[in-house]
């Protein structure tokens, strides 16, 4: 049944990078289950008109001619601690020297190029949860979220581990905007247009407001909550 929910992800390890949009999480998981990711790999060069978006169990609303899902941007508590972690990668040259064929045992440039050693800084935040206000079908959302074990960047090395997903029913729909001191405050990235005139708490920017958020074809003038 379609209702308003506050969905909370309880984390058991620190979050790396930026938190994800809720529709992107569901879209990722559903496309994995439906096999979309296996029949075609989506890259920046793929035309979005050629692919089908997975039918995620969230309501949609048309804003400035664009259909956006009813889910707020991620809401994070103030981090209890914040630091920069270094993610390192290097070729173990002493290990591989004898494994290589003799003609390839030559000096290797490791300061730049394909074999460059990395020591990349990554923003890490110690938070215990993050939440989204959504309008959708709890049962179907929960089915998808059960397989989402981690959020954010570097999930493969243990960051952003989710220990539990919880749902709280809400009386009002806060997925797009919420009232604060009688004034509507923007809760989600939406296309910049006439709808923004009555809303506060946003910055005018350029980016995507629908998934996939990283795809250049989705880029437009947007109002981003701040």
């Amino acid at each position: 049944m379609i209702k308003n929910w506050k969905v909370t992800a309880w984390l058991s390890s620190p979050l790396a990078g930026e938190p994800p949009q809720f529709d992107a999480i569901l879209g990722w998981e559903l496309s994995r289950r439906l096999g979309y990711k296996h029949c075609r790999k989506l890259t920046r060069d793929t035309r979005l008109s050629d692919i089908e978006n997975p039918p995620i169990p969230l309501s949609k609303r048309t804003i400035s001619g664009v259909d956006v899902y009813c889910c707020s941007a991620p809401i994070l508590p103030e981090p209890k601690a914040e630091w920069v972690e270094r993610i390192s990668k290097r070729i173990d040259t002493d290990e591989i020297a004898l494994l290589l064929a003799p003609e390839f045992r030559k000096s290797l440039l490791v300061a730049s190029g394909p074999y460059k050693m990395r020591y990349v800084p990554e923003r890490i935040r110690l938070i215990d949860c993050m939440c989204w206000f959504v309008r959708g079908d709890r049962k179907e959302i929960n089915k998808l979220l059960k397989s989402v074990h981690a959020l954010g960047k570097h999930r493969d090395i243990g960051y952003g581990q989710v220990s539990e997903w919880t749902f709280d029913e809400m009386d009002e729909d806060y997925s797009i905007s919420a009232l604060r001191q009688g004034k509507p405050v923007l809760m989600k990235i939406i296309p910049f247009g006439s709808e923004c005139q009555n809303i506060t708490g946003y910055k005018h920017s350029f980016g995507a407001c629908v998934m996939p958020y990283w795809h250049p074809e989705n880029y437009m003038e947007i109002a981003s909550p701040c």
Partner: protein
Amino acid sequence: MELVKNCKIHCLSEALSPITHMMGTSGNEAVINRESVVYKNEIRQVPVLSGNAIRHKMIRDPGGLYLIKECGLVGKLNIDQANYLLNGGSLTESSTTENLGRIAEMQTLLPLTRLLGGSLRNQVVGGSLFVLRGILVCEENRSQIQKQIPDGYELPDQVLRSSEDFIDQYQYTRGDAQKRNDAELILEEKNDDMKSNLMIYNGQSVIPGSIFYHGFIMQNISPVEIGALLHSLHQWEANGGFIGGQSRIGHGKLKLSVFFEDGEDFMGNELDPAECVKMYVDHVHANAEKIVRWLNDTFPNKGKKTDTKKLAEGALEL
């Protein structure tokens, strides 16, 4: 390919020697890797084994070396092949197309790389393995561990020791040939005016007997991939089971205990870990030639070849 739903492996690793998984230096002292943890509304810095280190040392490195050995590739690899098998590869070419056939072939032939993912020359292929960080079993981490261990298991009610109780110091000396008693005998010329290289170095370590909780989560994988993971862990243990720095002097030795959760296939049949490992070993033996062919097709030798005859002559002269 036979698929398993999801699988979680819980691990407890006991330190058998000082663990020196470092994060940098403070003055001339090496400091161990720590992360911030909230404990009773305070931030504490608690030692941690990074997921990056566990992933490389316990899985990719031993697993890659096993493949190289079993496929008869020792001394026959090119740099891109070695980089792919032991470090996950690098994106070195741009491409507007994704070769799904090549990815499918890789996922069929190399269960280990399907698990870990990696970069072919012009396409990045995601993996299905999530490595959990190694968190120290101490009072500060109690709530984090309790959230992650399987249902029905609980930490003891007694207060665990604080993380600071598990941290110690080590100190060693680097020698200098000029300072040896027999220096005059072994050196052609002893120079007393030269600055000495004798150096005392020290740092922090996690004491032997400490226990780290970590684990692996695998999504949509086949039994042969579970076998690849467990086999890599066996290989790592068989090679000493070291993690972190200073393993040359015995630091970083861990004793691993594994607990298998949700090891069922889609039919609800329980999977036997030993059977999964056997399936993986048989798979590698049966497909060794195909693996070599795939590696040669995907990472062909490029550029001007070195004159091997000249190289051999040069080596003889040396």
